[in-house]
């Protein structure tokens, strides 16, 4: 078990380093974009005087490295600064409600997609090359091949214009869980359709791969039912690749759903990130980038821990 703890500590250390590098890259990349906050927020109405005054007020006239280290020291003390656009509002407060929305949608979609994908994956492995396998595969592949917004529009056309579900996933203040689930159903379903195929096919491939192993043949020869062979003997050994693909898809559900947010008018982090980049609101961009990077780091770490735990050979390596 000590081996696991050491791995976690080591990986968290590397994770911090990753976040540091990400913060430099994002800061640099935002600097490389043409224009800055003052120009972006004034837009067509920008005059040189107003731009200069905003820059001076916000300290944007300082050199890049001064601004970066100011920001970095703030972050080390747990202060992510204030948004350039709303001086009275700490970034953390701005992000919190959006983060909650993003997690809610990600968990909602994952709660539908992961069981569905794993069940389908096991079933298609069990009945591989049957009609069921082909139909399930081609349906899932078509769902993943359409762009997300197209899937979303189809769902709106079928399920929202007929009045079953709302086309806008906005949450009224004080909505209870039932209403939240109802209002966010279409975006969650869209995401489910988008991520299911990947996980399902990976499950299928991992299981089928194992089915050629001698110990599976042994199990079959002693007369075990095919479903039992797969669930008892193949699946536990397929956990590592499955955990990895699930982690990647969960990370995607947190970081990559801006298109779905826009189509369903869902106030999540993706939209905030895009807006902040377009207005060069660097403190907000940085904070969100760190959250996204941390999501990848932590989910990958979790996947690795699960695969290690699921594999006694890795557990007992010294």
């Amino acid at each position, binding site marked *: 078990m000590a081996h696991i703890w050491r791995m976690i500590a080591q990986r968290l250390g590397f994770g911090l380093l990753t976040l540091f590098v990400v913060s430099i890259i994002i800061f640099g990349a935002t600097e490389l974009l043409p224009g800055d906050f003052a120009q972006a927020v004034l837009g067509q109405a920008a005059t040189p005087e107003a731009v200069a005054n905003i820059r001076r007020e916000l300290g944007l006239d300082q050199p890049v490295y001064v601004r970066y280290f100011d920001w970095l020291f703030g972050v080390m003390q747990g202060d992510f600064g204030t948004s350039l656009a709303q001086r009275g509002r700490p970034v953390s407060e701005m992000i919190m409600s959006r983060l909650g929305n993003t997690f809610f949608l990600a968990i909602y979609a994952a709660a539908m997609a992961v069981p569905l994908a794993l069940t389908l994956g096991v079933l298609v492995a069990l009945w591989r090359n049957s009609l069921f396998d082909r139909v399930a595969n081609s349906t899932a592949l078509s769902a993943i091949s359409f762009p997300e917004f197209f899937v979303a529009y189809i769902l709106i056309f079928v399920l929202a214009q007929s009045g079953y579900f709302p086309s806008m996933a906005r949450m009224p203040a004080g909505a209870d869980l039932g209403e939240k689930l109802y209002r966010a159903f279409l975006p969650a379903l869209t995401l489910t359709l988008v991520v299911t195929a990947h996980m399902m096919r990976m499950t299928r491939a991992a299981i089928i791969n194992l089915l050629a192993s001698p110990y599976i043949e042994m199990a079959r020869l002693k007369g075990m039912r095919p479903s039992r062979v797969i669930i008892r003997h193949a699946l536990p050994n397929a956990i590592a690749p499955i955990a990895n693909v699930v982690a990647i898809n969960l990370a995607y559900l947190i970081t990559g759903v801006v298109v779905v947010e826009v189509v369903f*008018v869902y106030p999540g982090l993706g939209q905030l990130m895009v807006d902040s980049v377009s207005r060069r609101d660097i403190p907000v961009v940085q904070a969100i980038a760190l959250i996204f990077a941390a999501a990848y780091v932590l989910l990958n770490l979790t996947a690795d821990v699960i695969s290690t735990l699921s594999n006694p050979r890795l557990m007992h390596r010294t």
Partner: protein
Amino acid sequence: MNASTRNPGLTRRGLLKSAGAIGAAGLILPASYRKAMAEPKRGGTFRIGFGHGNTTDSLNPALWDQAFVQVLGNTMHNYLTVIGADGQLEPELAESWEASSDAATWTFKLREGVTFHNGKDLVAADVIASLNHHRGEDSASAAAPIVEAITDIRADGDKVVVITLQAGDADFPFILSDYHLPILPAEDGRIDYDNGIGCGGYILESFEPGVDAHFTRNPDYWKSDRAWFDRVELYAILDSAARQNALITGEVDVIDRPDLNTIHMLERAGVNIISVSGTQHYTFAMDSRADPFSNNHVRLALKYGVNRQQMVDTILSGFGVVGNDHPIGRSNRFHADDLEQREFDPDRARHHLREAGLDSLTVDLSAADAAFAGAVDAAVLFSESAAQAGININPVREPSDGYWSNVWMVKPFSAVYWGGRPTEDWMFSTAFAAGAPWNDGFWEHERFEELLRAARSELDEDLRAEMYFEMQQIVRDEGAIVIPMFSDYVMATADNVMTPDQIGANTTLDGVRATERWWFA
């Protein structure tokens, strides 16, 4: 300033034709819309979906730009003056005003009995602090140029404000209706915009930038015949398909900027389309300092080389009118109705090229959809029509991101959006006066400057009209801006949304006053 409203069954073209036949002054409404003239009544939650809204929006009026925050401002705040639906200036917090004989000193008498949402009475100090928010050396306000002419503001008692200008300006009270200039309560000579307190018809309940804003009706509002709704909710719905779906599925009651390409589908879904022709126009700005645009014959060749009607039909799907290379809209007071409309004429374009000593001309035209929706397509259309006159326009697709800082007024020939201004002087001073920060043609004209100054301080309406007519002609024939089209303000409303029979044409959503002027059936 016609509000043309239609229901399914009445085609836009038919409507426009009959409007033209009867005369542009008539108000044409289908019979089913007569109910709009019913008496307004209270109640309901009014929800608007906007094609704008950004997480960097704020309550700071100095940084307001697009329709979402303009409506936000006009919902929670009042202004000294307001532009009525008929385009005339109406008193709001200023009950009355008068000018000195040179129009350089203005005395505004404030309305009695107006209170802010926190119960504080409106006094002169509030007005002074609210205007000073945009003035001075340190001003970071987008409205700084329009209040630049103010040299002094002082109170004369609690209810009178005296404003002194550098020079006479007969239209000065119009400036005070600008959406950047709401009146907020002052504390120690400054305004605290973050607390969201105003004296408008609705009280701000919550504001999540880039997402939504919620209001409840102000029970103490001083206007008894305005602000009919119990609640108002504004939503940012940037995706046009999502916006239209929200209207069709009843999530919102009104949307602005419906997608003109698919608007016929909205009509089938049983919603009303409101289209108002106002001051909003799309232009191509030429840098008159740079060759070849420094030669007026080249500029004229380009002006004759654009097929205006084709642009209105394709880029605006017919929701607009052709422009005449000057920025004054048909709804403006001093629009030169008699000025001959410039038409697409490849022969004259060739003639002007020859006059400029050129056989052919090749120029790059920068455009991006940030300039206006369809700007890149418009540049391509321009290039096609100009090709018939031997002019090679090479449309360059620029990134939308940073367009206003890196392309506009930087590249010599670029596509531009103008919301227009309610007065001639304001529009000309903003974008055509020598040295003005947004003079995007970098254009200077002696006679024009002379007229601009004379007309500004002239109080005789007939003389002013004459001067503004001449200025429109000068800009049309010698200006550095191709103005091919004026774009209507287009909105779509649910069946039960009622509007007055005249809708403001100075900007979208009834002069961004829909929350105050409209009601539910």
